[in-house]
């Protein structure tokens, strides 16, 4: 059966399509400038309030059903642990860690809690080639162990060195990282276990936008007490967990050299050339081939015509 489209039906269809396209609610592409989910939650960590009691570590350990550590959570000698010249970090047995910093000129130490910062545009997510990571609208960066291959590119990409790998398992390895208590709490709108456990209100849970306001307010009201910077507002394109500090951030272990834009921006230069190579190369090199072998081709052609004569 042969179907033909008359000019009239074609125009009618075309017009209808245009109308539908203009009337339908516009679906904005968010890929180019994604600034995070508007209602994403976050936590504001105030270093001036933290006393290093490690309650958050204990709460996390219990909530996430992680193995019992060698030293109990009320053992504060862990603050003196040094591995490879570095203070304690996250690993396959702990999603969050508190470290002590003795800042010169300050009569008391400062404590800094580290965990996944739940970036607005996470490097782990963008570098993952099996889509094992998801940034949920609630603000959490969660991980799916069922598709993960264990390549550990996310660990390379994370500017905060947060994801860790369960190297000790041969048959069931996976990435181990803080998921903002997504499954058990955040999904239902409840704060993560560490926040709830904090006796000092050093951790404030709320909408990220609101937290930024709170942070600015604290700085404005007591400018002598705080550095005029909210770490995480712009770092690597913004993070859901943010920090206030009384001393310059590099003195309490923060990497102040991390870029102020998403990590993905550094990779885009390369991603941009891919379509170019895929489309231009075949034509270009086929052309080179024709040029390079033109003499042979002419010679063959001449021989053929001679033979015909």
């Amino acid at each position, binding site marked *: 059966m042969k179907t033909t489209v008359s000019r009239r039906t074609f125009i009618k269809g075309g017009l209808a399509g245009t109308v539908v396209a203009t009337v339908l609610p516009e679906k904005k592409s968010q890929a180019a400038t994604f600034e995070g989910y508007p209602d994403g939650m976050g936590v504001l960590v105030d270093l001036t309030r933290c006393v290093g009691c490690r309650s958050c570590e204990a709460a996390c350990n219990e909530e996430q059903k992680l193995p019992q550590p060698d030293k109990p959570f009320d053992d504060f000698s862990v603050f003196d642990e040094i591995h*490879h*010249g*570095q203070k304690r*970090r*996250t*690993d396959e047995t702990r999603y969050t860690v508190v470290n002590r910093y003795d800042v010169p000129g300050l009569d008391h130490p400062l404590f800094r809690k580290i965990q996944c910062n739940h970036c607005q545009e996470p*490097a782990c997510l*963008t*570098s*993952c*080639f*099996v*889509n*094992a990571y998801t940034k949920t609208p609630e603000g959490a960066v969660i991980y799916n162990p069922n*598709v*993960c*291959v*264990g*390549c*550990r*590119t996310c*660990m*390379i*990409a994370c*500017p905060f*060195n947060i*994801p*860790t*790998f*369960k*190297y*000790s*398992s*041969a048959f069931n*390895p*996976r990435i181990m990282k803080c998921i903002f208590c997504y499954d058990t709490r955040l999904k239902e709108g409840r704060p993560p276990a560490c926040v709830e456990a904090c006796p000092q209100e050093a951790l404030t849970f709320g909408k990220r936008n609101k937290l930024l306001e709170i942070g600015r307010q604290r700085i404005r009201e007591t400018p002598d007490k705080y550095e005029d910077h909210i770490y995480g507002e712009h770092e690597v394109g913004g993070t859901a967990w943010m920090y206030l500090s009384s001393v310059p951030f590099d003195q309490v272990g923060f*990497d102040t*050299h*991390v*870029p102020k834009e998403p*990590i993905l921006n*550094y*990779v885009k*230069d*390369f*991603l941009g*050339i*891919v379509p170019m*190579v*895929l489309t231009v*190369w*075949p034509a270009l*090199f*086929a052309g*080179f*081939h024709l040029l*390079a*072998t033109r003499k*042979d081709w002419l010679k063959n052609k001449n021989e053929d015509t001679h033979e015909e004569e």
Partner: protein
Amino acid sequence: MRFFSHQRPELPIVDHVKPDGSQWTLKEKLWLGLSGSDYFKQFFRNPVNWLMIGIFAVGIPLLFQRYIYGLSAVTHASNDYPWGLFLGFGLFGMVPLSASGFMLGTTVELFGRKDFHPIERLALLNGLLGYFFAVIFLEIDLGMWWRLYYPMIVSLGPAAVLFLVAWHVATYLSVQVAEVLPALFEWIGWLKGKRIIRSMTLGLTIAGIILSTLHQGALGALFTYAPAKVHPLWLSANFQWIHFFCSSIFAGLSMVIVSSTLIRNFAGWRCDDEFKNSLDDITIKLGKGCSLAMITYLVIKVVAIAHDQEWAYLLTGWGSYYLLELGVGVVLPMFMFAIGVRNNRASLVRFAAVIAVLGIVWNRLNTSLVCFNWQLYQEIPHWKEVWITITIYSLYFLTYRFIVYRLPIVYSWKGEK
């Protein structure tokens, strides 16, 4: 083997038919035409094989340990250095050294430079095996190695650089298998298969260029995910992929010079006169290509430093190390190539190629291990990790030798083809 070729004129096998008119069977071809006892006699006479046995005696139990007790049993299980030697050497080092396949495929098939024909198959084989073993290294390193195909079918993350690497290495491996198959088809005597591949050569070659440009570059681009970790001198967000791609050109060519030299010197019985007689000439021409690629690479390296305003870093300790790497790994062999080419001295070109190969491995190890997390600390790999790496490399060597001894790679098949 040399010993037997003197005694038995019909060896090495170059034809389907024995001098007495009967056919070589496949089994005889596999045993190089020797009886079992003769084969083992020559095998155990070779000191290299004893070295291999020593390496495997320790390496194989270590591999079992890795697969039964996990990666932490054989590595330092570092969360700061997620990629160790398996990837730093096995993937980032092996892949540029295997660029030879697409380089010589392009030269011969696309640009019609038939004068490189005698070394084309060796270059293709060098490429195929390098990639294949890069995948083996990956299989050692991947936590869930049984999910290797996941990025292909199960869960796709097409916006990631590694996705591109995975797909391109997989497709390029198939392309290279197809490119090397004619040698196998000649050897087993299935000419129809060879004709089919022959008709696809141009398409395969062009596919090879596209895939190689992209995944050689992509391996570099993987480090642009860590702009705050890798030392700025070894990382340039804009130029990283060009650095990796451009250096893979001379890396691949140098590797094929090294490999052909080893084969000519230690497996001369297997080479035919065409290969032996043209090798010096080809080596010098390849050396010329290397020196040109190297000067291009050097210029882009300098451009990257200028672009990122990194001159001040050159005055630090890391800067000296960087200059040492460039000086010994690139500038020195570049001049040796140039002098060797100008004075027609193949031996100098060969020496330069060895340095260039080591230089490129050094560069990749610097990028992925030494200067990664330069602000934290340097990770020294566990001895078991080093041993496993050597074991897999030895397996690569044995496979390479096994194929070169048998298939028409460095000699032409005398029978029907």
